[in-house]
């Protein structure tokens, strides 16, 4: 048992450890419903805060992720309510259904994440660079296309092919079937 510093909540340490080891899952959970980078960052940040605020309520004897997902889910859907209906976004009802499915699929998600690193190595250096450019920057796809001297449509297509290749590789790794 860890010796807590004086005056700290007894379960703070346990909470901190659980949070640190699960923060990527929480990020991924939110990302599965809010793909837009800025929204994902914002809601993840809000969720982190909320979890920190509620850490006293965390019971170390219960699974951490379902508890954390509950807060993330509330943050997501209150955000969606604030935003109002957006025609370029999946409907809240459908997202709620997806969230329910996603919350029960942590093991599969963890396996896919583990497979990703190896699959990234299968990409060509150019593909890896493109992915990095896409995800390391918050610039719009149009701006990124401009900086790469291509069109947004062409860039979308290239990213789609890379994602498809990665998904096939991940699926093959997870199921043990060579692509």
């Amino acid at each position, binding site marked *: *048992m*860890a*010796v*807590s*510093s*004086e*005056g*700290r*909540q007894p379960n703070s*340490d346990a909470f*901190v*450890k659980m949070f*640190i*080891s699960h*923060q*990527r899952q929480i*990020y*991924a959970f939110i*990302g*599965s419903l809010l*793909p837009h980078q*800025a929204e*994902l*960052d914002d809601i*993840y*940040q809000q969720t*982190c*805060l909320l979890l*920190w*605020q509620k*850490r006293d309520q965390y019971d170390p004897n219960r699974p951490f992720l379902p508890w954390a997902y509950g807060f993330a889910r509330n943050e997501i859907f209150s955000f969606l309510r604030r935003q109002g209906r957006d*025609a*370029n*976004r*999946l*409907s809240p009802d*459908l997202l709620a*259904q*997806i969230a329910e*499915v*996603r919350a029960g*699929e942590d093991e599969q998600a963890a396996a*896919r994440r583990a497979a*990703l690193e190896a699959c990234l190595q299968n990409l060509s250096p150019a593909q890896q660079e493109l*992915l990095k450019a*896409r*995800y*390391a*920057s*918050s*610039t*719009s*796809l149009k701006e990124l296309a401009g900086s790469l001297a291509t069109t947004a449509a062409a860039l*979308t297509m290239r*990213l*789609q092919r890379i*994602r498809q290749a990665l*998904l096939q590789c*991940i*699926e093959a790794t997870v199921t043990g079937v060579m692509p």
Partner: protein
Amino acid sequence: MSHDRTDGRTTPPRQPPVDELLPLISRLCDGRLTRSECRRLERLLASSDGGEAINLYLAAMELHASLSWRWHGSRQTATIAAGATPERRPAATASLLEWLDAIGEQVASAVGNSLLAVGRRLSRRRGWLVVGLIAGSLLIVAGWASGIANGPLQQVVSFLGTSPRPQRLPGSIACVTAAHDAVWAALNEVRKDGAGQWHPNLFDSLFAGHRFELVSGLAEISYDSGATIILQGPARLTITQPTQLELERGRATVTLDSRHGAQPGEHARFAVVTPTATVHDLGTSFGVAVADSGTTDVVVFAGVVDLLPRGSAGGQVVRSQRLTAGSRARVDTARQVSEPPVGVAGQFVRKTPRSADGVVPPPFPWSAAAAVTIFDDPFHGEGQLSGSSPVSHGGRGTASWIAPLSGWRCEPAVGGLVTGDGAVFLPVTIEPGHLYRITVDLQVTAGGQGWAAVGLTNSPDPRISEFTSVSVLQRHNPAAAANECRLGRRRDSRVLATDRLSGRRRRTLILDTTAPVWRVWATADGEGWIGPFRLVDPLHRQITHVGLAAFPHTQAIVHRLRVESFTLPVEVSRSRVPGSSARSFSLASPWLPFSPFGSHVSPKSIRSIL
């Protein structure tokens, strides 16, 4: 998944139309999905075969989020490890605890007991929430307050126009909550940046041991313990303990929050120590005046106090004297107690005059004692600015001004820097994990349609007509109809509705780099805050220079420019693993809102708070 049909036969699951789904999901990830495509994706996901389609969607979105985390979200982790050697850097998923373990004794010796000691002093007051509205215009400023020891991190949301309590730093025990014509003098305190003397500012957090002088005017200091002190200058004092104030000279009125008051017979909740007496407050309101000689006058306005002359005089046994409401007493340098004239009571200010100009607390905590001055340029020099440095002008910071245009001159006759068209820059290194404060005293003097501005940029081009690449911009335009003080870029700016556009104004920008998305607030003379303005685009976080600008055909006087930084505290606790000599660390910083557990925390920043 299989689907039962009504005839009882089962069929294998239908494969979702991958060739159609994947492009749609990919376009969704890239923000390129059209309205009709979105409806099509909805139908595919919601169809009777939607289970498999949703699985495919989740696999694709998991990939998207993982890639995003790898290159975007995990930057916080990379930053955490920035101070570690590369081989010690954890993978994106590695925990901070592992990293801290890798740092091992190096961190242990650096942070251990000092921070634990800080932790023990932490405020036990919980955070608070203030919500208000003014004139139908809603302006949100957000920051954080906390009580680490037993209070959760609280997000503080205040709306302009209320009188919210200032943000507080963990470990501080009091705060300057009001100031009225206050002129402070620095005493023998050493600032974190080695600047030596400092004095508090309005809304600064105050820590035990802080000593300062109020030369003139009034100031209100609020203790966490519930005591509110109205100081009348000239006064010299030390914040000694959470429930104690040492008054060397001057006049102070103490009011104790009734919730913190002691019943008669209980221990005192607050004490004022003077050179000749100690006044124990038992839940009341009283005044203490200390003359230059040390003679102490005490007047009780309400409740009860115990007055104890300090030390024995002439071998006499000193006894405390209980004073009730309406009574007064004087302790002279011989420790003799007498009754002062009636008029003494009328010399105390019992209610803090609130200024009518709407000065509101900033949405972040600050302490002048812990701030580091990067640049301080009072522009006391003379001649062309270009190539000179703040040091040349009697300030701090050795970097040279970039000011190739001739209009920028130090003119002692006007008490500052005279500007012309164009911009000037000072190189500055902005790092994650800090609050930066850029303060400029600015006055536009000529140029009907022009404006003057302070900003941050990554492109020090003196000829630009507006800080096109600047991340933030606060500008001062006396010719505008109204509300031309803006924060932000041209197409994404916010207006400081309370701004006045004439005269000399203190423009302040705050850059908060403690979160992955850096944030900026601005104010003019503290009369309301606008922000946060979020620097979402990484390009806008590549700040390399602080800039001043004036366009077009505008003249202004810049009286002073200051750039300060402040590192927010981090709580680190050390644990021993039973049965072994190994230690583990847990780290929590309630001031790092993105991840309380270490975003932007490097060994350097940990050491910097010790």
